[in-house]
């Protein structure tokens, strides 16, 4: 008995090759994520290297310090070098510890306050820096704020954040101090 045309069509399709199924993984999301991470690290790496120079901030025991907020700030690094070398770093600018360097630093700080009167200065000093290297910076910040407030005819509060390093649990405080 001959099958109907419909049955014949079904049998013919069943004998044909099975439809191809693509098993390739969709890598688009993976590549997107990877590129985002690469861009993030490129940008963050540059910002960090510009603002912060390699130094070791103090690590008080169980400090009463707090995490920095989101306010705009500039990072003023105080290096533990001798007076004849570069003593301060503000952004990508370096300043010597002599009178000329301090004058240039004050001018730069005035520019910072003129551009942003609400800027805070993160004073990031090396733990081994002498106090007579740090103390002039505090006076400079006050003086620069006063000079900028006169230029802007508006009061500017010189706000400073003293940067410390919170010691990790079970950290090597004594070993770091020898650096």
């Amino acid at each position, binding site marked *: 008995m001959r099958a109907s045309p419909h049955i014949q069509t079904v049998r013919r399709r069943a004998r044909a090759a099975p439809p191809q199924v693509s098993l390739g993984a969709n*890598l688009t999301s993976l*590549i997107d994520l*990877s*590129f985002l991470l*690469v861009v993030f*690290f*490129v940008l*963050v*790496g540059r910002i*960090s290297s510009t603002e*912060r120079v390699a130094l070791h*901030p*103090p690590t*008080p*025991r*169980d*400090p*009463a*310090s*707090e*995490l*920095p907020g989101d306010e705009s700030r500039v990072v003023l690094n*105080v290096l533990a070098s001798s007076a004849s070398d570069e003593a301060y770093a503000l952004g990508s600018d370096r300043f010597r510890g002599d009178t000329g360097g301090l004058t240039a630093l004050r001018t730069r700080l005035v520019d910072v306050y003129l551009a942003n009167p609400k800027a805070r200065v*993160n004073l*990031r000093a*090396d*733990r*081994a*820096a*002498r*106090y*007579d*290297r740090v*103390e002039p910076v*505090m*006076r400079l*910040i*006050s*003086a620069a*704020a*006063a000079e900028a*407030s*006169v230029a802007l005819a508006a*009061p500017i*509060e*010189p*706000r*400073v*954040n*003293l*940067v*410390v*390093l*919170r*010691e*990790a649990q079970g950290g090597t*405080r*004594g070993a770091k*101090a*020898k650096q």
Partner: protein
Amino acid sequence: MARRRNNDEPRRASNVVPVPIALNLTPMIDVTFQLLIYFLLGTSFVLGEEIYRADLPNRSDVRSRATEVADEPIVVRVRSLGSGPDDYELDIDGPLSKVSSAAELEAMLNASIVSISNPQGTITRANPIVIAPTADARWEHAIEVFDAAVKARFGRVAFATGMNATVRP
């Protein structure tokens, strides 16, 4: 009888050999991950850095500030004896007890605050504290003493810079 194909009819699809057009993404992914690993290893995050908020006075109103400070400040002198974290000595002006470390300073300050339970106390937390390191004192020793005063919840802690700074704990 077979049907003759007209010249105007399109050819059957089965006669066209499909050419796979695919972009080989493997080298790109390799390079991307190489870059990712490089930046992961090369980037140094500044983890663990925290701050003390200290507001320096504006020089334009030094006169009014000078008249504001009526309390006798507690002057803590810091002198470094070496490069170790505990290699320093403290000296306090006035009748307060002598201390030898920042931890002792914090305890002494807390014990000296006058209150109902401690009527023999001699100071309040409104008293200004001036930290006066010597010129060659290490910054870490100065910060250690500053931290002790902040932990004792004194609101007016200053470094001896010729003007008073106010910390906001």
